[in-house]
């Protein structure tokens, strides 16, 4: 069941699925028909359904990662609603009197006590807590992977730059949701996390202390922060998230999906299953698969055992304190800053050990957010793109991506430096020093290696497109000569290998006054860097020529 949808407006072979039937409708069908008509007459929704219902989804697995994120978000909403019925967002001290023995009689905040009650005394509560938390981890993870897919296939290029930006905002919101949620139980682990945030805020020159007092309603930890985080967590952030998600999906429908090149798949159409009814049915099923996987994990694997951590108290700090994975890169950055960088100026301490990670990560995040615009500016590419690049066909971008992923991965590893030390029997100092070096070296290496690998793969593709692949069959010619038979690709396969655009570095031209500005020079340099190493795609003349000359 494949269908196509056009970008340009000229329809190419769309299959209609409204087959008029001569059969007399049944009672049920008549009822549905009447109901549909009733609603349509009042809302004119049929236009929308037609538009949305005809949206085409391509059928490569990587296009389903966004869906995974969407469905885990639905699971989060459902389980989160359950949790709000029992959670008490208050820091009023109470004496715990639930069923977990090692905390009985201990004074803790009502938030912590109610979280423990959810875990031990409310039927299904622990499962729901674990579903909620696991789904949150999956949510952010699937967004991350989805973003990588979009990045490495160049699917953020015109006209989808805005949607990349919105997707990025969703990613940040998801992390903020995660962090606020992680802090709500007011346990020792999350309290340590909040303390770090407090420290980072206080490290900001001039404004820091004020902001911290504003945030916590006084000196840390105060008695306010949990109820404030709760409002953020269940009201404001989800509201923004849902709104941004709506726009994200709307733009997705307007822009249509990208697709990998293939026979009949061009820059002007999308080939795949239309949303109604095939895709909707598949998607419904897929939702339950994702839900099922989450519940299976939640039912069998502990997450965030707050009963082990105990209530928050500013004095104890546990070994092996880490944030949830998606905040890990920030924690790692803090761990990697060398000591002794802070200095005093006019009696104020400037905490470079906090400012360097803050600024460094800020830059990194900004580059991620604006990458589509940066790349478009460097390459001067203003065309619309609806065909997803194979990563190898954009070596520089793929290499940049690999470098970014490596940078992130090193920071991420640094967040678990202590566990690496104990589990691999190495000293924590050597782990830190190695990671410090890797933070700068590894991205460069990753960049070079990836670029070379991409170019090599492209060459290989070119070879195969021109000469076919080695069949392993050796034939002896009448003259005594041995040759290996090369098997030619069929046209469908070859299409995948040859259909990509060739780019050339920007030619920088003088402006109206006959001058070339510095900015333009920089741009030209960047563009050369971006495109200088490239393998030209095979053209049809190439193919014909090679066919004439050989065999």
């Amino acid at each position, binding site marked *: 069941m494949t269908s196509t949808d056009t970008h340009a407006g000229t329809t190419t072979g769309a299959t209609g699925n409204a087959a008029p039937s001569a059969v007399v409708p049944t009672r049920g069908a008549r009822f549905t028909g009447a109901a549909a008509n009733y609603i349509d007459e009042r809302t004119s929704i049929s236009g929308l359904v037609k538009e949305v219902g005809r949206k085409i989804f391509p059928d490569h697995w990587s296009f389903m990662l966004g869906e995974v994120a969407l469905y885990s978000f639905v699971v989060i909403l459902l389980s989160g609603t359950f949790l709000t019925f029992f959670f008490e967002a208050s820091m009023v001290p109470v004496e715990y009197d639930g069923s977990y023995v090692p905390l009985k009689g201990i004074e803790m905040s009502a938030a912590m006590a109610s979280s423990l009650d959810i875990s031990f005394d409310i039927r299904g509560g622990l499962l729901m807590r674990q579903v909620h938390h696991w789904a949150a981890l999956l949510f952010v993870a699937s967004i991350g992977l989805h973003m990588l897919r979009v990045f490495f296939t160049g699917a953020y290029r015109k006209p989808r730059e805005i949607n990349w930006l919105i997707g990025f905002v969703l990613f940040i919101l998801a992390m903020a949701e995660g962090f606020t949620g992680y802090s709500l139980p007011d346990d020792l682990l999350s309290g340590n996390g909040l303390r770090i945030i407090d420290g980072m805020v206080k490290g900001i020159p001039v404004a820091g202390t004020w902001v911290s007092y504003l945030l916590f309603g006084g000196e840390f930890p105060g008695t306010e922060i949990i109820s404030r985080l709760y409002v953020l967590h269940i009201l404001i952030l989800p509201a923004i998230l849902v709104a941004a998600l709506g726009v994200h999906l709307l733009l997705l429908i307007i822009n249509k999906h990208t697709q990998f090149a293939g026979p009949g798949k061009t820059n002007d159409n999308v080939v795949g299953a239309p949303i109604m009814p095939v895709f909707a049915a598949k998607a419904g099923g897929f939702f339950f698969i994702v839900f099922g996987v989450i519940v299976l*994990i939640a039912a069998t694997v502990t997450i965030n055992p707050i009963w082990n951590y105990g209530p928050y108290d500013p*004095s104890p700090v546990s*070994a092996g304190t880490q944030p949830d994975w998606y905040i890990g890169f920030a924690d790692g950055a803090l761990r990697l800053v060398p000591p002794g960088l802070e200095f005093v100026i006019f009696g104020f301490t400037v905490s470079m050990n906090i400012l360097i990670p803050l600024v460094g990560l800020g830059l990194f995040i900004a580059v991620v957010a604006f990458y589509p615009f940066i790349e478009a500016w460097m390459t001067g590419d203003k065309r619309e793109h609806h065909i997803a690049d194979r990563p190898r066909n954009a070596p520089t971008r793929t290499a940049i991506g690999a470098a970014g992923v490596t940078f992130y991965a090193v920071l991420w590893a640094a967040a678990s430096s202590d566990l690496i030390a104990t589990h691999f029997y190495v*000293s924590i100092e050597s782990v830190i020093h190695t990671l410090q070096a890797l933070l700068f070296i590894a991205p460069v290496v990753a960049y070079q290696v990836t670029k070379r690998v991409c170019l090599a793969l492209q060459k290989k593709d070119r070879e195969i497109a021109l000469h076919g692949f080695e069949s392993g069959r050796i034939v002896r010619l009448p003259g005594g000569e041995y040759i290996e038979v090369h098997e030619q690709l069929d046209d469908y396969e070859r299409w995948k290998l040859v259909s990509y655009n060739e780019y050339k570095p920007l030619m920088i031209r003088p402006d109206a006054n006959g001058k070339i500005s510095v900015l333009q020079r920089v741009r030209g340099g960047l563009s050369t860097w971006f495109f200088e190493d490239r393998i030209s795609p095979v053209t049809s003349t190439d193919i014909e020529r090679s066919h004439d000359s050989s065999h």
Partner: protein
Amino acid sequence: MAKSTSSTQKRRSGRRSPLASIALIVVGLLSTGGAYALFTTAATAETTVAHEQLTEEGSKLFAANCATCHGLDLAGTEAGPSLIGVGEASVEFQVATGRMPMAQSGPQAEEKPVQFTEEQIEALYTYVGAQAPGPGIPDEEYLAADGDAALGAELFRINCAMCHNVAGAGGALTEGKFAPSLTGVSAQHIYEAMVTGPQNMPVFNDENISPEDKANIITYLTYLDENPSPGGLSLGNLGPVSEGLFIWIFGLGAIVAITVWLTAKSN
């Protein structure tokens, strides 16, 4: 004391060996228990003689196994610290957990299979304890794990969690040293570790944490050992790192596998 060591033995071997060896343990318990019973009845009659014998045997064992590093007079050498005044508890802990005699020099003496029999260990600590007073073998009343687990948990979070992690999963210290995981450590060894402060661990004397509170801490750690994690697999109690790895590898991994399968061409 006899009973406590043998019950200790039971818990530790239960952890180390599969269930199949229970029979062996029972036999071992019966024989050691019987031997001890005999021994103690004999000892009441001739305490001093037995004590002297033990000290003598300990002195020989010490000279043969320990003196190279700790010196014949216990005063220490380049290779090992002085043992004067470390007390019976320290020797029992170090030798019965296999840390001593130290095998190779590393950042910290590692736990190894125990090298001496129970009698030999007793001989060793009696000998060292006889040279200078120090913390003795803990009283059994503190080792029964029948104290207040909640209080113990709180004390543990305040005094121990920064090195051993809140769930006792262990943690890294500087220069390759580490605080080990506390799962499956016997009550006696927990107590002895607190009073003697092995290597990088501080000493928690009776003023610091009273014997009753030490018993509470032991109660809490025993509770953790005996009660499986309520939420399912505990992933080594390593917290968010293992959870994050789990969701990426098994959660997202499973889902990606499913999407690949769903979109695979049916042919």
